[in-house]
């Protein structure tokens, strides 16, 4: 078993010879909300990719759920990652993407109707995602991410494209997620989201 959801020890990542992360240590306990903050190029997204097992590390160790992250179905069954906007399936509406997400996960955290209402997408439910605005597509991405069950939420700048009011709503949603026992690690520039979290700044040199 493991005491912490995430355990990072002396993590160093170099991209193209530039050290992006250097000797980073991080431990995240279950139910915690952690905000990775820092200026552009400070390695926030790189750290999240390391936690998701999508970025080879130069040295150090990353353990998620007590073992190195693996890019396989078992891992993604417990971890929900939202980075850049996903590529939407052609021929499906916004609602159907959420329906699909609910259909493949045995115990969804909320119904599709509830997700559409929560993320203010009811009026655009029948639109293909490509016809939504940038902010609406980000809400749809967040709805899909939060509708499915997960233990660990990795979010890369979830506030991207969202208006001020919805950013506040998002903070509440993440709180609820953590109250249910979930763990959140997010890279963010939003002060509101950072305030509700334990803040960590990745050490390293801007790439």
């Amino acid at each position: 078993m493991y005491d912490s959801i995430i355990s990072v020890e002396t993590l160093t990542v170099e991209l193209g010879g530039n050290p992006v992360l250097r000797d980073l240590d991080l431990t995240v306990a279950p139910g915690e909300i952690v905000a990775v903050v820092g200026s552009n190029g400070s390695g926030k997204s790189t750290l999240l990719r390391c936690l998701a097992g999508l970025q080879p590390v130069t040295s150090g160790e990353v353990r998620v759920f007590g073992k190195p992250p693996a890019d396989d179905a078992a891992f993604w069954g417990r971890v929900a990652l939202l980075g850049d906007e996903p590529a939407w399936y052609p021929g499906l509406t916004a609602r159907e993407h959420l329906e699909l997400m609910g259909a493949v996960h045995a115990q969804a955290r909320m119904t599709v109707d509830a997700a559409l209402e929560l993320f203010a997408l009811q009026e655009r439910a029948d639109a293909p995602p490509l016809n939504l605005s940038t902010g609406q597509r980000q809400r749809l991405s967040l709805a899909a991410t939060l509708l499915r069950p997960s233990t660990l939420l990795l979010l890369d700048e979830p506030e991207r494209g969202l208006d001020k009011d919805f950013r506040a709503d998002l903070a509440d949603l993440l709180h609820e997620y953590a109250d249910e026992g979930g763990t959140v690690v997010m890279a963010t520039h939003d002060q509101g989201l950072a305030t509700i979290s334990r803040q960590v700044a990745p050490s390293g040199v801007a790439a």
Partner: protein
Amino acid sequence: MTGSSGAGVRTVRAYLRSRGRTPAGVMDRYVSVFCLAMLIAVTGKPLSDVLAGLAVPGEPARMGAGVALLALGLAGFLAAARNAGPVLLPGADASWLLLSPLNRRHVLGRAARLLLGVAVVAGVVLGVGLLAVLGAPDQLVWRVLGALVVGVAAAVGGMALAVLGQASTSWRLWLTGAVAMLLVLAAVAVTGQLRTVLAIAASAPPPALAAAVSGAAVVSGLLVRQAWVSLERIPTRTLVASSTRAGHVAGAAMSLDPGALTWIAEDNHWRARKLPSRRWPSLPAPFALAWQDWRRLARRRGRLVGVTATAALPAVLAQAGGSPTALGVALLGGALAVASISTSGARRDADNPALARLIGVSRRKALAARAVLPGLLAGAWTALAFTGLAVGGAMAGLADAGGVAGGFGGAWWLFGPLAAPALAAAALRMAGRAPVDHSMPVIDTPGGAIPTGPLFWAATGPDLALLGCLPTAVALVSQPTDLAPFLMAQGVVSVVVLAGFVWRSRSGGKVR
């Protein structure tokens, strides 16, 4: 940079070139010209032999089918041009040059010239095809020239019509009408109703030929002129929308990944629609994921009808005199293409696995579930195509032979469902292939350098189709007296290929 003359655009482009790659030097130009000369030297003789081989009267019984194939080819060309734009700009040009005071026609001039080049190449192919169908009983040189001019005029005129269609709705209707007319022409030609007309066209005297060629050239020229003028009137929103989609084009051009180009047409299609959401069926997770392709296909019934209609093409090809090998290529290629239209989910996940990670279904199970629809489509299409060949009389000898030896007379259609699993595996392999690997070696040949990266890319998918359908291919070429062993072998090989493909797939998605 705010001027509206052509000099303004030239200045901008010269600046961009100066900031980009190193300008071509004398040696670069020499190498280009030398390679071109070598290409002409190497291909000149075989090409002239091919053209000389066409100096025979066409066979009246095959002219109808041949003209039908050419009409379908031209209709497909026009439909593809309409769906792609056809006037597109690279993303950077769309962002920076299109929304500037620069002269619109000069900004779009380069794209227009590229379209003209594409149309000329397509026209030459069309012209050679026309000559092969109608034959050249006399006056070879004039008939070759005439066919080429008619082919180029048709393709260039059609492309001009597509450009005009981008600028105005009424011209778009004309374009739709032209495509519909070509389809009607193909249908009429294949029934043999045009035999007399085609025989007259094939033996037309030089003055009549010259008149027809001149007429085609004049009409085409007028359309091109009109299209050039209309470049200024293409709405910015249309250009920006198509050029945004052309972000895929830019990516495809950079990585030489033609597969990415199909996303343009796909996204274009769905952007223009409001869809009624339907409840997702309650299925096991892998099948719930695979259901996306079923729903997408159900929403494109027109495409489904079109695909069904193409099952008649091998029969038309046989009527036009296609060899068993050509028939085999058409059957396997067609079946693979049909299977590929229902692998959009696998392709999306291969291009960008973010959604697949959120869904969290094992790759192996997802592949197995996603193989059902392409297998069904490919199996049904191949069975229909074989039935068409049998009905058209092309397989009569083969069916009779099979009936004598093994009681499988007319059982060629069984190859369809039996080859389906292998075709599904091949289509999924195509859907999951990585972009072209340009780091692969380049082979120097007397005809020029051959980059192996694009070759391997193009062969990924068709290789599995050929391997998995080998018994069908061998049966088609060798025309056996007894089909039973080939049918059994096809069933076994097909299942083994699909099972092996699914078993070998990695359990996780791609790391990107």
